[in-house]
């Protein structure tokens, strides 16, 4: 049986490590967004790379706000969005705006969707993303002063909602590791 003073010493000894771990947990989604934003801006020449960049970022925001909102704080989201804006080719500010919209929608329906299954949350995410890609398509058409082919919009939408199940599975696995650590 340890004495209270001994327990206090142990706590003090491990305090920096615990703080670092807590901070690390708080910034992991933000770091994930920034890293993928940078990696997918590299010239790999992968087909659909740009669309995949947006899809991963939005899917990350959706998952963590829906299932673990405390690790995806709004300031962190805004900061990571600002940084990622430097590496994307979408109209300036648009991805950041749509990250905030996804954040808002996920916050609003979090309690209802958290109780439902995966497909329900995926469906709502698909509708949210549809609004985003449609708005981006409108902006690009206005900028080009012509109606751009809607195929680009459909491709981006399908890719964004198509990559989400993979992200969901990966993040669910990561969340268990977080919880156990």
């Amino acid at each position, binding site marked *: 049986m340890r004495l209270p003073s001994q327990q206090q010493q142990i706590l003090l000894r491990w305090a920096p490590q615990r703080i670092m771990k807590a901070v690390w947990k708080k910034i992991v989604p933000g770091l994930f967004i920034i890293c993928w934003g940078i*990696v997918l801006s590299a*010239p*790999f020449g992968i087909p659909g790379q740009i669309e995949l960049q947006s899809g991963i970022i939005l899917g990350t925001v959706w998952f963590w706000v829906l299932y673990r909102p405390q690790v995806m704080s*709004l*300031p962190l989201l805004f900061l990571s969005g600002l940084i990622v804006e430097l*590496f994307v080719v979408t*109209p300036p500010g648009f991805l950041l705006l749509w990250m905030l919209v996804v954040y808002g929608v996920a916050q609003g329906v979090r309690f209802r969707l958290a109780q439902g299954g995966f497909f329900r949350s995926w469906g709502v995410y698909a509708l949210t993303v549809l609004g985003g890609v449609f708005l981006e398509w409108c902006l690009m058409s206005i900028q080009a002063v012509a109606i751009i082919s809607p195929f680009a919009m459909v491709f981006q939408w399908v890719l964004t909602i198509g990559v989400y199940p993979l992200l969901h599975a990966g993040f669910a696995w990561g969340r268990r590791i977080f919880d156990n650590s």
Partner: protein
Amino acid sequence: MLSIHTRQVLAGLVLPILIFFAVGLAFVGQVWPQKLVSLRLAVTGEMAPIYYGLTFPQREVRHWEEMLHGVTDLIAENQNLRQQNKQLYYWRDMATSLKAENKKLKSVLHWGIDPSLRYVSGWVVREESGPYLHAALLDVGDQLSPHMGSLAVDDVGLIGRVSEVGPHVVRILLITDAASRIPVTMLPSGGDAMMVGDSVSLPHLMYYAQDTRPVEGARVETRGQAGITGGVLIGHVHYLSSGQPIVIPAADLKHLDVVRVFDNDTVLDPPPAAGRVREHGPLISVPPKAEGEPKWQGLKRFWPFSRIGNG
């Protein structure tokens, strides 16, 4: 210290404020896109080393893939190389052949002539060498046929004279033929003689003056007179035995290929040395006095090719 209610109200305001900022950023990006685009470009420029590092595995994988692809395609590549090698051999042979042909044509070109004078060139299509005939058939194509008795030269010297003229082919009677009679001049003595072929060996020298006997090694040229151009190198004097001077031809009569035939009145300026292209115009000699064509001119075919005169 803020109350819980105030904090909740403020927390609820953060998202709209940030959305407002994001909308403002999007608006600025639409209205003044240059600065934001420049900022993105600058960041991309700074990120170049990181991008290089990120794409390094991809480049390496591609490199390995190309290597593996090359290894698997080795047989096909080998086959392709063999085919190309074959083609290259063909082109090399073609180039060698063209080079040799070009050299021959150039060697003929070193005869200086007046461009206004007529001449034809052609390839020897057949050599008619037998016990009684030493001639060559020259393919002149659609070129204007030369006259009878015209001089034929290779790249060095005289080979003979035109004995028959056809629509596309002319026969050159070589200087070694028994019917060949060519007036010559020996240098430096300047003595004249008649070079006579005998179809057996090299042409002999006959009818020379006793005071200007052929000297061993003397240069032999055609004698300028009516119907024949003077000064064309034939060869050199050589004595097979005492009192039997022959002419060793400068031209290679055994290997005739490209031959040029100058028309009767053509004035040739012989080359200073074989293989040299003449850079200045030829010396034009005084043409022979015009005289009426005798009626028996047609007999020239059976007659010695020219007659000796003072022309």
